């Protein structure tokens, strides 16, 4: 690549930063009017919040403005951020723990959402407190999924329970939970095959995994994490609804938030199924995991 291209690329980056700053500056000097609301609406829509939730949020702003609770233009964005943060915060974002015995975490999601990578990161996160983790390779469908999880188990130095590709996923999950119990593990994390929420038979398979896990530990799974790709748009809502219906999702793990996607559909997801976001994945490295911070997430929607 030539010097000119490099320069051009650098300039493009500067332009983006400038544009963002400029927009913020514009907010300051502006009147609080419908055109300001329209700009905020655009920001929300561009962040994948979706037309329904966006309209509801903007209506709240408008109501506050008309009731004179909002008077200055620079207060509008903070107000909106606060409304979104509130929506996302209720219900708590902490991981549920089993009263005794291993905490069983079932991880599910559509294809390519980043389940296996997220499990690699989650394992490292759980191990931070010296906890003992066992992984269950219940994605027996996708080619080399078991190998992929095995590599993550090696990187983390934890045990993995697995069978060959094509094995019964529920049986693998059962074995993993039984092994975790026998070895006094603190956590058993089960990877499942990616499935589109419209595939009834595969959703039933997921229900079966959940039922079978209960046979080993009656109150398991303690957490059912749904992995949602932040680059997804409004379909994330459908995914959440359908997975929740099938296996009662208890938390969301949002991935790929390190790009330019804002993941705004999660606000609508929260409105729809009422399940909190618990973790955020931000990169490809093992440490690229964070506990979800609603305020930071809401702020990023307007960056």
């Amino acid at each position, binding site marked *: *690549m030539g010097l000119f291209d490099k320069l051009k*690329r650098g300039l493009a980056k500067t332009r983006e930063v400038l544009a963002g700053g400029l927009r913020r500056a514009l907010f300051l000097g502006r009147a609080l009017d419908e055109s300001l609301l329209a700009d905020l609406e*655009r920001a929300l*829509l*561009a*962040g*994948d919040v*979706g*037309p*329904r939730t966006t309209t509801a949020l903007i209506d709240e702003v408008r109501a506050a403005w008309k009731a004179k609770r909002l008077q200055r233009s620079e207060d509008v964005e903070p107000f909106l951020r606060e409304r979104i943060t509130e929506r996302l915060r209720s219900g708590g974002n902490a991981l549920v723990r089993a009263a005794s015995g291993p905490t069983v975490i079932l991880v599910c999601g*559509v*294809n*390519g*959402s*980043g389940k296996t*990578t997220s499990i690699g990161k989650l394992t490292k996160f759980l191990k931070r407190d010296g906890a003992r983790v066992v992984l269950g390779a219940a994605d027996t*469908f*996708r*080619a*080399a*999924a078991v*190998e*992929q999880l*095995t*590599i*993550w188990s090696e990187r983390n130095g934890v045990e993995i329970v697995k069978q060959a*590709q094509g094995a019964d996923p529920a049986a693998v999950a059962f074995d993993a939970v039984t092994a975790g119990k026998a070895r006094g593990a603190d956590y058993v994390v089960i990877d499942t095959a990616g499935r*589109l*929420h*419209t*595939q*009834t*038979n595969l959703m*039933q398979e997921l229900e079966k995994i959940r039922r079978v896990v209960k046979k080993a530990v009656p109150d398991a799974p303690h957490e059912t994490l749904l992995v949602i*790709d932040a*680059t*997804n*748009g*409004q*379909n*994330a*809502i*459908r*995914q959440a*609804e359908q997975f929740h219906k099938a296996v009662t999702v208890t938390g969301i793990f949002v991935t*790929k938030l*390190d*790009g*330019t*996607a*804002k993941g*705004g*559909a999660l606000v609508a997801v929260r409105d*729809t199924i009422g399940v909190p976001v618990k973790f955020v994945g931000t990169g*490809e490295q093992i440490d690229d995991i964070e506990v979800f911070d609603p305020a930071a997430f809401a702020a990023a929607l307007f960056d």
Partner: protein
Amino acid sequence: MFDSLAQRFTRLFAGLGRSKLTPANIEDGVREVRTALLEADVGLDVVRGFVERVKEKAVGLTRLDGVAPADQFVKVVHDELVALLGGEETRIRWNDRGPTVFMMVGLQGTGKTTTCGKLALHLRRKEGKKPLLVAADVKRPAAIEQLKVIGRQVDVPVYAEEGGRPEKICARGVAKAIETGRDVVILDTAGRLHIDAELMDELEDVKGKTNPHEIWLVVDAQVGQDAVASAREFDRRLAVTGVVLSKTDGDARAGAALSIREVTGKPIRYVGTGEKLEQIEPFVPKRVAGRILGMGDVVGLVEKAQEVVDEASARETAEKMFRDAWTLDDFRLQLRQVREMSSKLGGLGGMLKHMPGMADLPEEVTGRMDDGQLVRWEAAIESMTPKERTDPVVLDGQRRARVARGSGTSVASVNELLKAFKLMRKQVKELKSKGILGRLAGRRMDKQKLKQIEDLKRRGIDLRNWFPES
């Protein structure tokens, strides 16, 4: 939870009947279009331009006799979508002096590796090519292993190295293809974020070292507003030559297809339609247009149905249903057609999936409708007298028992059949009163309308093109 645009329009224009479109209701319609497109994840800027164009065209519409304004409006939107999605030469640029190199790129998790396998199988089977897959994803754990497994499944060799620089692996892969007489090379690159400068540089290096004839961006049908930003960047850095839309077997509206098309101007080549490696199809603009509007993918169904049902008999059935002249004989004919169709489409369940709204039906419902039941019903109808077939009310307990005996079925089965028949009749009546049958079973077939359809045809307008399903 999303209403289709057709449903929204029907509601919106319900009070309007057949009167003219006014500036006010055009404005309402435009707002609905905007919401529908945003719910389908069409990019914000793309929506804005699109809506403006639709508005211009709607204002210039002259009223067509007997055509509801809602229908006219949907047609404008649908046509505009089709025009935007398609209309360009999409032939693969084959290299006649050596192997044709395909470079597959995209964000993480869009389905690149699976798509590579599907493409290899498709080109091997449909184009008689001898592909070589090259594992250039040295980043994701076990990605190379995944491609090797897929290669075995599609019976295509895989070139892979342990570690190393992707551009070097790819260059050696191409050399290997030349050496072994393979005429297609498919490079499976690692998924990456478009803002990851280092990895985007790496792709440029791969491109520089292999001179691909086609560079295809794999895009997940579920992607949201970010599709525009990432596609633009991939295109800027690599000059993408085509797009593959993956995971269209879900219920995502795939509005990103429109954004990417509009922003990059690059054609969509193929769509991935399932987890199986043979599930890849050439892109058909009309289908995705219908999908974005939430009309279901009925074009496929209609195309396949046309192989079985000739149009005249379908029209006759629709007409009879409206005139309440629909008898068990007609029902029998329909059952047989459904059965033939269902065997072509992989069973009733597979068929229903193609129909609007039907994808949401729980399996308890679709699962119960097995082909065996259709056979039993057909047999039962065949055991009835002509009088019974035209006027099922005469079928008392005694007659039902006789029909059951005669057809080798059971009274319960006969009862079920009659119940289903009654229910269908009732539904047809309800649909008729709601005026939405036009979208399910063809246009209303009263005489006046038929005449108008013929008139329109003479003027070069074919109503059947108005909606993917009609």
